[in-house]
């Protein structure tokens, strides 16, 4: 079984209609798993379900062999999950350094070393550590957001469309960093609009359509599959 897995999840927001139907996504340690699919396919919803932000009435979420289906998002953070929301993912009025510090709020040990690691990963943040995060460019903000989530030393990092609204160059740069993070042994689960680029770096890919798994394979295999290419990757 995968390190983190949401199995056969069915559910939706509040008392509304179900958005996910028997959907399964998972990721191994040190790997990158990417969830792609058309607009409204329930990609973000699937990831939020794994993180506990909506109720699933069937299926379960397992991490490291332990069932965490009934835990709150906060409790899942304690268990070692890091989550980077798509929007409003930094404290705009606080400095970069303070953002990272807040990311490590639940930790009682010395965070200086982790912060150094984040600065090594994103050197530009070290330069701008005293600047309010709201004054940074879009790409830099995403770096702060990822860095904030890394501060808890998570075992799993979940990213909701990290490249939304950034330029292609910045996107490549960001993906490089994500690969680097995965290499440290962290499992990465990410939802992406830019399916082609994302599947390129993915160890595993999930194509969702209308809340259901349509194709599941390695990133490479999905990229090679002519049907997937035609329907979801623009040929």
């Amino acid at each position, binding site marked *: 079984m995968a390190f983190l897995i949401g199995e056969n999840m069915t559910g939706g927001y509040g008392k509304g209609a179900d958005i996910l139907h028997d959907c399964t996504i998972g990721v191994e340690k040190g790997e990158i798993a990417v969830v792609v699919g058309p607009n409204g396919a329930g990609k973000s919803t699937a990831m939020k379900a794994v993180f506990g932000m909506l109720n699933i009435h069937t299926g379960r979420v397992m991490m490291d062999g332990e069932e965490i289906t009934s835990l709150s998002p906060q409790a899942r953070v304690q268990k070692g999950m890091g989550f980077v929301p798509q929007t409003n993912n930094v404290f*705009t*009025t*606080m400095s970069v350094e303070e953002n990272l510090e807040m990311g490590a709020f639940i930790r009682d040990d010395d965070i200086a070393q982790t912060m150094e690691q984040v600065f090594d990963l994103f050197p530009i943040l070290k330069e701008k550590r005293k600047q309010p995060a709201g004054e940074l460019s879009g790409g830099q903000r995403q770096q702060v957001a990822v860095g904030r989530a890394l501060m808890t030393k998570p075992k799993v990092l979940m990213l909701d469309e990290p490249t939304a609204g950034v330029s292609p160059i910045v996107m490549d740069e960001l993906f490089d960093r994500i690969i680097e993070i995965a290499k440290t042994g962290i499992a990465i689960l990410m939802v992406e609009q830019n399916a082609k680029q994302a599947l390129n770096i993915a160890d595993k890919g999930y194509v969702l359509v209308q809340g259901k798994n349509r194709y599941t394979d390695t990133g490479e295999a999905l990229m090679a599959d002519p049907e997937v290419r035609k329907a979801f990757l623009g040929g």
Partner: protein
Amino acid sequence: MTDFLNAIVLLLNFLVIPGIAYGCQLALGALGVTLIYGILRFSNFAHGETMAFGTMFTIIGTWFLQSNGISLGPIPTALLALPLGILAAVLLILGTDKLVYKFYRKQKSTPVIYLIASLGVMFFYNGLIRFIIGPDDRIFTDGSRFIITAREFKEMTGLDQGLAFKMTQGITIVVTVICVIALFWFLNKTRTGKSMRAYSDNEDLALLSGINPDRVVMIAWVLTAALATIAGTLYGLDKSFKPFTYLQILLPIFAAAIVGGIGNPVGAILGGFVIALSEVSVTFAYKRVIAYLVPESWAPEGLVQLLSTDYKFAVSFSILVIVLLVKPTGLMKGQSI
């Protein structure tokens, strides 16, 4: 030249110093309003009464100390009783939060419901205060009245105009500076303070980061109660304690918080001084100042007062209106701590 100096001293004595002291009191009050706005996102109409409640217990403590012959010499005994007032206000406000506001937090109610609840709380406090201490004026200032008296100043400088620096004004300024430094140190340097700023900035992300909302709210109330008590006590020392005036001071306090940018502590302080200095300078009679500055034959007959002091509320209201029309977010960008 002497005339010019006399005019300056006159302005300092009757306009600048009282204005600054009043500005300090408003700033401390507005800080409390802005803190609650930043964390709980509603305008707390019970804030004036919270000030009065804390002040009331400070007064009771002062009486107790005075009757036991304890004093601080030239400094008002009330400062020694301040911790009692703060403690009482903190207990009251935490009790209120538990019984009233907590429920609406669980319900995720809209700010307007909190606001109405705060009206009910205000009503209750209002009765409680009058029940305990009565509606009358209480003067609890003791110690020496002046740091520099007008006569001493005249002897020192040889000017006609005296500059009287009241003890309560000096205390107000010193205490405010200490409070503001302590508050900003707390908000910017401590982990708890930063977590409050984070919560105010982005509630969802703060929750994701493991910041405990109940704790943040509790600390916000404690700080508010302390600031309110200090502001109320300083105001009461400088003027006098009358429960009704604390209802009236709510308007300039709100004006200060909004003018500065509600939710922004720096803005609250700025707003406090803007409101206080405009209030004082618009209702000041400039007759004697002008008399010093112009030849005798030009001296004005009237008081040269823009508005009578009865309309001081109109001043804070007008500034509020102008800011709402021109820059609704306030002078500093608001809505976060």
